[in-house]
Every structure is written in C-alpha cells, then in structure tokens.
C-alpha cells in the first residue's frame, strides 16, 4: 500500500496503480476516456491530466512540475503529491472538451447513448457551454462494421479503447485506426467485420455513442430502463450482469465488474441469449389434471392440492416410487425447497440431476492464449447451476441416480410419481424420456417452454426465466453468486421460488436471501456467498 496526497488529502492505494485509479477509487470524478482498467494504457485523450510534484531533474528538489501529467500513466508511489482541483487542470479539461466537440454532431436527441454518455456528462461537468467553432464540421458516415454493431464515426472521441479491446482481450484484431489527424477513424478491413464471441463489450466500453448495439438500437431511451443485478445463466462461468428492463420487458444485458470471474466483460452468447424470455411457447399458467379433466386453479389453492395428491400417492404406492429431477437451471434455493418437499413427503424418494447441456469446447480469450494469459473463458457447460444442484444433492444424500438411470428405471416402471424440472431455453425432452414418463401416474412438469411431457402431466407448472426469478447460482469456480429478479413472470405466472416455497410448507413471500439463510443453517457450504465489489461511481 502507498499513501499519496491528492488535493492535500491523504489517500491510501495499492502500490503502482495509476494515480487516476487511486483518485477515482477514493471518490474523485477524474474525467477520462482512454483509460480503462482492463486495457493497456494509451494516455491519448489527455483529459485526466493533473499537476504533479516531482524531483527537479538537476537539483533533485521536489517541486510542482510546470507541465500537467497524465494521471492514468503515472503510477502511485509512496509520498507522491498531485493536484486535481486547480485552475490549470480545469483549463485543460475545458480545452480537451472543446476539442472533442469540434466535429461532434448535435445528435444526442437521436443517439442511443444519450443519458449514459460520458461526452454529455463531461461536457456538462468539465466543459464550456459555448463552442467557438465557426467552420463546418467534418462529417463522416456511420459504418456497419459487423453483424451486431454499428459505428457512428462522427461521434468517436478516438480513445482507442475498442481497438485495444480487440487486440488485448478478444485477441481478434478486427478494429484498426484508419487515416490520421482529424480524419482518423475506427474501421475494419472491408469484408473482415467485427465478429467474435466477445465483440459486444466494445459497445460497453465505448464512452460515447459511437459504437452501438444493433440489438438495442432505438429500442428504448436508457433513462427509462430499470436495472437488476443478476448472474448470466448462459454458461457455468457465471458472469455478473445487469438486466436492464422496462415495463416487464428485458431490453439488454450488460456485464457487471466481477474481478476474477468475468472482470469487466461478458460474451455475446450470454448478452443476446435472453430472447427466449419472450418465446411464444412459454407456459404461463398452472394446469392440474385428474383423469381427462384439466383445470387451471388459483395459485393460492395449489400447495394444498399438490401436498394432498403426493401424500395420497405415497400412502398408496410407497415412498420409493417417488423421484424428483432437478434442473441445472434452478437456483440453489428453488432446488433446496423442492428437495425439502420431496424428502418430507417421502424420505426414500430418488433425487436426480437433470441433463447438463454441453456444447462444443470451452473458448478462451484472447484467442490462442493459454494459462495466465487467458482473460476470459466461455465454458461449454451451457447452464448456470450444475454445481449448486450437485451441492444440494450431496447434502441431501439418500437415494439418488443419474438422469440416464432415471429414464431407464422410469421406463421399467420403477417410479409412479415424479417431479421433473426443466427450465432449459431450448427443446430438451428426449424420445426416451417422453416414453418413460408414460409409466408415471403422478407427473409434475415444471418447465419454461411447452413440451411433450405436459400432455400427460398431472401438474404443469410454468417455470420462469432467470430474469424473473431470484436466488443464487454456483459457478464453475464454486462461487455462490446471488441474483435478483428483474421482471415479473408473464401474466398468470408466478415465480418458481414462490410456489415451491408454499408447497414446501412455508407461508408468506418467497425471498432468496431468507431461504438462503434457512438453507445455510442446514448446509454450511452455503454460508459464504460471493458478491462482486461495487465499482466506484466515477469509474467507467
């Protein structure tokens, strides 16, 4: 740790981190464009300049250097002194802002970035309200640089964050700087578009409205969005994300800073993978069948009906005829509640880990990197909570079997009652499973999208997408990461946690944290959860 003095105030920071980072961490709003903690240092935007005390080259006497220094490029050293709140520094900020705005179009009303734009914010806070520019602005067209991204060249501030991202993080090098001086532009080689599994991050790190996401383009003004802290369900990496939503519709996902897991990034598969939330095949209301008679009872009546039918079934057929298939898309809390209910009803029942979707190989970035050099990995295990469910199963003990064994046994008539949880964003029911469940009298299907099991099920429960649920997922690294719900379930639906909570015999509102406490009391492994640190307000 080093102690440095910023504007006369002592600040403690890690040795050798950029002075800019130390100041931002300590609450200063130091304007910056080119600096990003996840990229190399360019020191090209000149917005972060500060006055610095340093030894005179000849006399070695400490004094304020006549020139301003880039604080992003100066490592913090013990005893160092810098000044930020001075006229000289502020004048530089004004000059820089004027320069950035020279050719900048007056686009904010039609610009997607407006409302979360650091050109707007910094102009307001550090710039001058008036422009002295009398000449015509340079104008350049926007470029379609890839399947998911547009580049509005005229809004660029040339921070080169995006170029450094493709060079250093994705390792795909698609972006380059073309031309020079005031004609400098970001561009790709024609025909080699920005198209890699991590490209969406360039939109996040672009401090202005130059790089924009086609998927979100003109969908919603950002100030109308609310945000929920969540965890990406796309793969076992478990990136911390933000779910931006409005009117119960998810508009976009953005990564949250989560050091050691996803740092500042997320992959495109996760980023755009939420569209199934609005799938027309979603199950929205519960169905209860008795013989050929199907009804959609009130949610309030359901716990009692379920408990009654299961207890009756166990009385008539014995507890070992019962099985529950848990899904790696369930949260730990939901899984725990279901296990509670099943084992309460029949301690001998069989617990099963549902199918774990695997696709291809893991992908590491920068492309071609190995070992320490890897900055991000997309895992081939395409579900968020296999480990969480495994932890629950391990703690539950008793009768258990693999999914394949379950299908085989069920086909052989070993089970007469089963609770099968899906929640997979894709079709997942195999022919074998479909056939095997024909032998099950009391079948509960809890799933997101309609499937063939539902036609013969005694109970059909709509599962919610992760954006509508709350709880925690355990990622590949074993970190237990809580997530919040963003939107409400579709009309007629209910959060899985809520109905499982009631079916398991609890009263009142389901709350992830409360259930986690109950769970942790019985399974100590769930005591320690992982929550990413809050990023300083002025960091970006």
């Amino acid at each position, binding site marked *: 740790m080093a102690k440095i003095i910023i504007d006369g105030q002592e600040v403690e920071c890690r040795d050798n981190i950029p002075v800019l980072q130390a100041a931002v961490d300590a609450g200063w709003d130091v304007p910056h464009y080119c600096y990003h903690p996840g990229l190399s240092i360019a020191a090209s935007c000149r917005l972060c300049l500060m006055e610095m005390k340093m030894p005179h080259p000849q006399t070695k006497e400490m004094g304020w250097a006549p020139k301003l220094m880039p604080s992003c490029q100066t490592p913090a050293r013990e005893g160092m002194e810098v000044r930020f709140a001075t006229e000289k520094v502020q004048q530089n900020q004004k000059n820089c802002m004027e320069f950035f705005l020279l050719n900048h179009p007056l686009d904010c009303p039609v610009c997607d970035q407006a409302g979360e734009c650091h050109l707007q914010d910094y102009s307001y806070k550090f710039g001058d309200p008036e422009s002295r520019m009398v000449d015509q602005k340079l104008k350049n067209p*926007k470029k379609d640089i*890839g399947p998911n991204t547009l580049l509005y060249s*005229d809004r660029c501030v040339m921070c080169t964050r995006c170029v450094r991202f493709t060079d250093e993080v994705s390792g795909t090098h698609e972006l380059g700087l073309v031309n020079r001086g005031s004609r400098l532009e970001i*561009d790709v080689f024609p025909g*080699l578009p920005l198209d890699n599994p991590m490209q969406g991050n360039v939109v996040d790190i672009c401090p202005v409205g130059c790089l924009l996401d086609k998927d979100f383009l003109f969908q919603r003004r950002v100030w109308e969005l609310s945000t929920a802290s969540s965890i990406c369900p796309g793969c076992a990496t478990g990136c911390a994300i933000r779910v931006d939503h409005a009117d119960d519709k998810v508009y976009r996902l953005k990564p949250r800073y989560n050091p050691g897991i996803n740092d500042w990034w997320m992959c495109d598969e996760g980023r755009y993978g939420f569209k199934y939330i609005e799938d027309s095949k979603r199950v929205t209301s519960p169905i209860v069948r008795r013989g050929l008679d199907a009804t959609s009872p009130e949610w309030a009546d359901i716990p009692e009906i379920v408990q009654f039918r299961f207890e009756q079934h166990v009385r008539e057929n014995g507890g070992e005829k019962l099985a529950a298939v848990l899904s790696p898309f369930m949260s730990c809390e939901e899984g725990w509640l279901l296990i509670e209910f099943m084992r309460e009803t029949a301690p001998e029942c069989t617990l099963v880990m549902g199918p774990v979707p695997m696709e291809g190989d893991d992908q590491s970035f920068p492309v071609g990197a190995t070992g320490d050099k890897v900055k991000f990995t997309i895992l081939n295990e395409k579900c968020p909570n296999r480990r969480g469910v495994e932890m629950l199963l391990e703690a539950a003990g008793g009768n258990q079997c693999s999914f394949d064994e379950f299908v085989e046994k069920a086909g052989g008539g070993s089970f007469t009652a089963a609770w099968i949880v899906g929640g997979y964003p894709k079709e997942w029911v195999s022919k074998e499973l479909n056939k095997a469940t024909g032998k099950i009298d009391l079948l509960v299907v809890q799933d997101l999208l309609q499937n063939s099991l539902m036609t013969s099920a005694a109970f059909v429960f709509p599962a919610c997408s992760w954006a509508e649920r709350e709880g925690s997922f355990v990622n590949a690294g074993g970190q237990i990461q809580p997530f919040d719900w963003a939107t409400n379930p579709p009309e007629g639906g209910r959060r899985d946690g809520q109905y499982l909570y009631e079916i398991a015999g609890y009263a009142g509102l389901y709350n992830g944290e409360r259930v986690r406490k109950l769970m942790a009391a019985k399974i100590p492994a769930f005591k320690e959860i992982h929550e990413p640190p809050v990023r300083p307000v002025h960091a970006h």
Partner: protein
Amino acid sequence: MSWITVNRNEPAIDPNAPPILSAALCEKIRSLFPRYDTKRAVLLPALHMVQDGLGHIPWQAMKEIADILEIHPSDVIDTISFYTHFWTHPKGMKVITACRSVSCETMGGVAVLLELKKQLGIGEHETTPDGRFSLVTEECLAGCDHAPCLLINEKLHRCVKVEDVGRILADDNNDRISQKRSDLFDAPAGDSKSKDVSGLESTSDVAEMKASE
C-alpha cells in the same frame, strides 16, 4: 451523416483471385525476418517493397502482406493509411501536391485547390481516369514566401493564382525542374549578380541582399 451507412461486411477483395505478390517479392519480404524481433516489424519495409513493385498497395496485397507477417489485415490498412506516402490505388503519372497549410491558405490556396479539383474532376488522393494526374494535399511545402504553392512531382510552382491553374495543367513540362544554384555556395567567384544554370535571373533574397551590399 449518420443517415448514411457504409457496409463494411462487404469484402474489398475477391477470395478466389490469384495472388498479386510474386513469389520473389514474398521471399524478399521474408528475407527481412531475421533482422527484427517480430515479423510484424517487417511491415513498413514490406509496404515499401510492394509499393515500389506495384506502384501502389491494393487491398489484395494488404491481405497477402498480412498473411506473410501473420498479422490481421486491419493492422496493415491501419499503418498504410497513416502515411500519405502509401497509395492504395494507382498513382497518376504526375502527382500534384497542393499545400494546405497556413501561409498558402491565407494567400488563396483553398481557391487554387478547388480549381484543381474542378479542372481535374477528382478529389484528394484520387487519380484521373486517364491516369495522368493524382491530387494530394500536404502541410507546408516549405515555400511559404511564395504562397500559395503547389508541387507537380518534384517541381514547385509558386504564387499560383486560380487563373494560372489551367495553363499549368496544360503545360507538358509542368514537372520539369530547372535547378537553381544556391547563391551562397555555388556562385562563380567574382560574380555578385549570379544567374542560375537555366539562365533565369534568381529571385532569391540572398542575391538581392548581396547586390545591395
């Protein structure tokens, strides 16, 4: 201009086109590898070689250079576009360089440039369809005292007025250099009012100063 979209997904080169760099040229580029720590470092010499060989560096050549150096083609266009020296399309027989810097601008350089563009029918860094002229602009041609200036190949035209443009372009000898000798170093001894080799009277200030001594 955000209402116009340039489509960058479209390739600039035909993937089935035969290679444009000869095997010998490729070999010459590779032969520089031992001189540098990285292959990437050979980029600038390679660009010079290709431009010297082909006259310019077409998209196809950029891709081939990138393949040889094991870098992304975007890094090649990145470097090429930084230097006006490198041409991505054929250069004309004569390159006209108009000055766009301060002295020339205040003395009417902009009007001269516009007139050039009008008469040639091309923009900056472009070449006329007949291949005779290319037009570029540069910062200061070091002839400020005779602003506005323009260069045709290596011949400096001084104090160019809009109405001179037509005549200069029509002149077949508009790039012929009549090298003036330096009064300070080359003047024959004893001759205070020096003449240059072309027989024209020198306009140099130095000569005037000497004469008035």
